[in-house]
């Protein structure tokens, strides 16, 4: 029924991938224009906020243009282009980029203003001499990265976007000026600035350092930052597939009738959900119209046949229940595309696709309606298309630290079912095969547990060996209890899915996780300075709390206590800032469309931004990094407390001067053996204690929406970016160099992969709800024959049995990665893991590429 042969299917899929890889994404202003139009029209009306929000979005769905591509089997794109990006201008995470980075002269002005602010700040705080010293130091450390440069959005090498001149004019003249100060990103930033969250010199400093035009994250302190998006989640996909949107809308209408006497707030919420569903239904109907129009325009017989079939499917779903596999996949894609138009870059993952789609697949196979090849082809297209809604027009300031596709809307596979039994099925294998063949960067998370079949492990091993590194594994045996620990029912815990990079939640039940970042090395640095901070621009006073001058500490335990107090303070700052952000979203940016697909909202008659979901939580992401902090503490324990080689004061002087002229001290630090990551019992024990204390601190807090504050360990690319603007650390890490990424060890000596895994597994992860552990493996490590592949799967099983929670191998030799740097065109499909997500290696900026190459490679012993 679908394509005549596998060969032409493969050709179509690789053509799509090539186009997605090589064509430049285009900025679409349609969504921003339509939303603003309706929003402003309702300005003088007395529409309650949720209703006004839903109406504005419905207006978008009513008039937006649909793109049907000649290569499509699944219909639907989120802009009028084959590869585009819609702007949710009312949230405005990227409004700053569009404001400053579409014209050279604006970029220049932005830079001059930044430099001027910086100059005034330095002269005021440090005087001419201080400024001169800083210039000298910056010269030594290499070109400064905190600079947006002069390459406009379409011109840049990493992650460019194009925009048509009329669209650009409209954006700059009409749309951006209206939303400046009004969009939620601006509101959150303003409120943070005017709150008393900044400690000591922080407010002054924050105003002086160049701000990044994107507002994805805000710095609260040297040790704390918050994300500004509303919250990652996984929608309930089963309900719309099973019932259809029309029935879901009926359900809401019944609720509205039944609640005619309810408080206005509740009625307004229900009404907003109804309008939200109206909008999605409109989107689906208009998409079908677009397919029909394409059919009328098409003369080619074969293509007409395909379009006819697509039209039948699009007329039916997602309005009505899906019955076939093709209908289920299209229903999912239509629904998700519509939702992503409303909420781009909020990161909504696909959850457990092998479970959600299974009934439809089995039904088709039973009656012979589909072949395995046809089903796989649809999945390949889906996995590629998911990736195209995972792009961000980032600021050039992040330039070399960024990439095109993030692969951070993972698909979750395998794991246990509601009763705790193995849930691996034929679709698990088919989806893995589709991921491998399509070479998508959409991350695939394979949930493993004690009873995971060897066959599944072997398929993972085989795919990894061939260099498709978009796979990671997560350990059910630890993560299911972790979910329960945070209040999830056993059934919901066993049904966990992954969103963002590596973040656990219950699909269709968790109301969006937004994150704070706890910058570990900086918090330790503040502890060593008794509450003051140090930056590459000089010292800042009172950015933390006074926890004592470490030179007066009598033992190492006192230092650990001081560090814990400082951490507690930073977590509190983080939680306060995150509550402020969540309150602003609740008060100003309701999400009726998302609320329609998250259990609890309709029952509670409450938007997800107000905590309507069945489960809520906030994440504290511990970054930059466990390894550097544990190693620093270990070095301090050995050299300052045990061997008394130098004082804290001497150490701090050396750090401030990046060890220049302190060769002896640096040599002693480097000579400390058995740091974390080498399977050394003493440092493993220290790591365990430090982590336990960090996690216990999070446990003390609750979040605004009424749920736990849960710990996560995933640095994305911040370890490179933040490392670039950080001073030296006591473990011997030099200034302006990357931190260890996520939960990776930093100073791996000779203990090999087993030593690394032993150290990583030594931590007590019980409260953790997300973690990334990267290892880079030489292909020979997995080997070509089943005998060696079984050894590899045994390695994985042992690691997970020892207490490892997550592993995401990148399988590529250093030679291969260097070759890819030299001739990117030959290595377009090479996928690597960065932080918690996967991406095409050649799309990465040079600095991140180098970081991936430098990551310790474990090769099998020959």
């Amino acid at each position, binding site marked *: 029924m679908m394509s005549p042969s596998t060969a032409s299917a493969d050709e179509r899929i690789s053509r799509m991938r090539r186009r997605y890889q090589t064509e430049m994404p285009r900025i679409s202003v349609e969504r921003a224009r339509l939303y603003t139009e309706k929003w402003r029209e309702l300005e003088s009306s007395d529409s309650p906020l949720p209703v006004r929000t839903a109406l504005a979005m419905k207006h978008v769905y009513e008039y937006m243009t649909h793109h049907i591509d000649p290569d499509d089997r699944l219909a639907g794109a989120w802009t009028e282009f084959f590869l585009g990006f819609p702007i949710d201008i009312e949230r405005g995470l990227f409004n700053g980029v569009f404001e400053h980075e579409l014209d050279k002269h604006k970029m220049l002005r932005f830079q001059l203003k930044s430099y001027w602010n910086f100059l005034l700040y330095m002269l005021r705080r440090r005087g001419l001499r201080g400024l001169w010293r800083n210039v000298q130091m910056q010269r030594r450390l290499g070109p400064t990265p905190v600079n947006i440069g002069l390459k406009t959005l379409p011109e840049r090498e990493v992650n460019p976007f194009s925009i048509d001149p009329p669209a650009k004019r409209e954006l700059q003249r009409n749309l951006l000026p209206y939303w400046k100060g009004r969009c939620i990103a601006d509101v959150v930033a303003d409120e943070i600035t005017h709150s008393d969250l900044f400690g000591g010199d922080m407010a002054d400093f924050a105003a002086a350092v160049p701000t990044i035009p994107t507002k994805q994250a805000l710095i609260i302190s040297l040790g704390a930052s918050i994300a500004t998006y509303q919250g990652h989640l996984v929608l309930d996909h089963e309900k719309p597939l099973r019932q259809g949107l029309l029935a879901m809308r009926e359900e809401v209408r019944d609720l509205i009738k039944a609640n005619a006497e309810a408080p206005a707030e509740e009625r307004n919420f229900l009404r907003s959900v109804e309008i939200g569903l109206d909008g999605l239904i409109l989107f689906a109907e208009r998409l079908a119209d677009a397919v029909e129009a394409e059919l009328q325009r098409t003369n080619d017989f074969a293509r007409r046949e395909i379009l006819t079939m697509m039209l039948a499917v699009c007329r039916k779903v997602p309005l009505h229940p899906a019955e076939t596999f093709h209908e289920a996949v299209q229903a999912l894609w239509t629904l998700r595309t519509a939702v992503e138009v409303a909420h781009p870059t909020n990161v909504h993952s696909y959850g457990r696709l092998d479970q959600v789609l299974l009934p439809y697949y089995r039904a088709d196979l039973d009656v012979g309606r589909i072949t395995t090849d046809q089903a796989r082809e649809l999945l390949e297209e889906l996995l590629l298309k998911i990736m195209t809604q995972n792009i961000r027009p980032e600021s050039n300031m992040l330039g070399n630290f960024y990439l095109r596709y993030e692969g951070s809307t993972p698909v979750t596979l395998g794991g246990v079912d509601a009763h705790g039994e193995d849930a691996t099925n034929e679709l698990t294998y088919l989806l893995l095969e589709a991921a491998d063949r399509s070479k998508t960067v959409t991350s695939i998370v394979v949930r493993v547990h004690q009873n995971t079949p060897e066959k599944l492990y072997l398929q993972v091993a085989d795919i990894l060996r061939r260099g498709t590194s978009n796979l990671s594994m997560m350990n059910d045996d630890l993560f299911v209890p972790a979910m329960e620990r945070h209040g999830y029912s056993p059934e919901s815990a066993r049904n966990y899915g992954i969103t963002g990079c590596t973040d656990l939640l219950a699909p269709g039940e968790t109301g969006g996780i937004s994150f704070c970042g706890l910058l570990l090395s900086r918090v330790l640095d503040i502890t060593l300075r008794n509450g003051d901070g140090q930056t590459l621009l000089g010292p800042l006073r009172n950015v933390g709390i006074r926890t004592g001058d470490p030179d007066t500490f009598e033992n190492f335990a006192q230092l650990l206590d001081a560090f814990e107090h400082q951490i507690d303070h930073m977590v509190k700052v983080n939680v306060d800032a995150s509550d402020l952000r969540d309150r602003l979203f609740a008060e100003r940016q309701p999400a009726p469309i998302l609320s329609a697909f998250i259990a609890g909202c309709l029952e509670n008659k409450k938007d997800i931004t107000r905590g309507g979901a069945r489960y809520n939580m906030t994440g504290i992401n511990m970054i930059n990094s466990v390894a550097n902090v544990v190693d620093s503490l270990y070095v301090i324990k050995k050299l300052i407390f045990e061997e008394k080689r130098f004082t804290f004061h001497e150490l701090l002087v050396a750090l401030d001067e990046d060890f220049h002229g302190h060769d002896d001290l640096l040599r002693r630090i480097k000579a400390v053996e058995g740091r974390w990551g080498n399977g050394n019992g003493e440092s493993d024990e220290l790591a365990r204690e430090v982590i336990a204390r960090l996690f216990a601190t999070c446990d003390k807090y609750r979040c605004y929406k009424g749920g736990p504050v849960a710990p996560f360990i995933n640095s994305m690319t911040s370890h490179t970016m933040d490392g670039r603007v950080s001073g030296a650390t006591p473990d011997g890490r030099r200034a302006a160099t990357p931190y260890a990424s996520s939960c990776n060890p930093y100073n791996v000596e000779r203990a090999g992969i087993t030593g690394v895994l032993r150290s990583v597994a030594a931590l007590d992860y019980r409260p953790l709800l997300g973690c990334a552990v990267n290892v880079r493996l030489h292909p020979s490590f997995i080997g070509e024959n089943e005998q060696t592949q079984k*050894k590899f799967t045994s390695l994985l099983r042992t690691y997970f049995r020892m207490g490892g929670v997550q592993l995401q191998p990148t399988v590529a030799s250093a030679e291969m990665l260097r070759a890819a740097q030299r001739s990117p065109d030959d290595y377009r499909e090479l996928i690597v893991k960065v932080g918690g997500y996967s991406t095409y290696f050649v799309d990465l900026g040079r600095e991140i590429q180098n970081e991936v190459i430098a990551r310790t490679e474990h090769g099998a012993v020959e």
Partner: protein
Amino acid sequence: MPGIIFDIQRYAVYDGPGIRTLVFFKGCPLRCAWCHNPESWRREPEMGYLADKCLACGQCVNACPQKALTLNDGRVVRNKELCTVCGACAEVCPQKAMEKIGWSATVDEIAAAVAADKPFYDNSGGGVTLSGGEPTGQPDFLFGLIEKLRAAHIHIAMETCGCFSAKMLDQLSRTVDLFLFDIKKISTDEHRRWTGLGNELIRDNFLALHRQVGSARLLPRIPLIPTVNDDPAEAEAIVALLQQARYEGEVHLMPYNRLAKTKWAKVGRGDDFHDFGELSEETIVRFTAVLAAAGYAVVCNR
């Protein structure tokens, strides 16, 4: 009694069953012209130096407490009389052009390092593989280590060139679980030409060891070297030896490659490195066919 070890490698998957840790003993009685670990030859620790990596920055010259180093024409020259192999030069070298090869370790240290990976051995049916150099060259240390590892219930494999005193046979066969026994060349004269020693002792040990432990605990391995032993005639000679021993089981081939070249240079033998050329797929197939015809299953460790 400390031993001299020059490397410990983990997650070895090509040197015996399951996941294994390789412990490399320093010192070897043979001098095979194709050797992959020429740094294992000398018994004592030594300093390795790679002139190709050296920037001639002179930091090592200044760091040497014995003043044993001098810079000469862009290279570091070591006075071996003065050098105590303390490793100070390697510590300061920014290029890692200097390397200390081998260290003195106690039985307890090595046993603990091996035992750390026990969970990985247990799950995969692996263990330790004692390698080298030649493990039997340090008998006291070897048997001390074996005793410790046996007490910790760790499976023990040993790679050997077979060149050891027959007096050791009994104790070895009692304590080692699996022997990976190299068979290089059947003609003793040719053996002497390419390895420095004749092979009478090696052949006798192979036959005696097989009598004691049987085919299940003895695995013949053949390093396949172009022009030296890759012809069918040699395969037939090897078959004759195996049949004489009444060996029944797998035979492993280890095809030659040139990757050891830098290692030869590192230990100052760069000029002695001999390139044996490419080993063609066809040659391997031909060689394998002879063994297979005699009923031996062949595993090629590529």
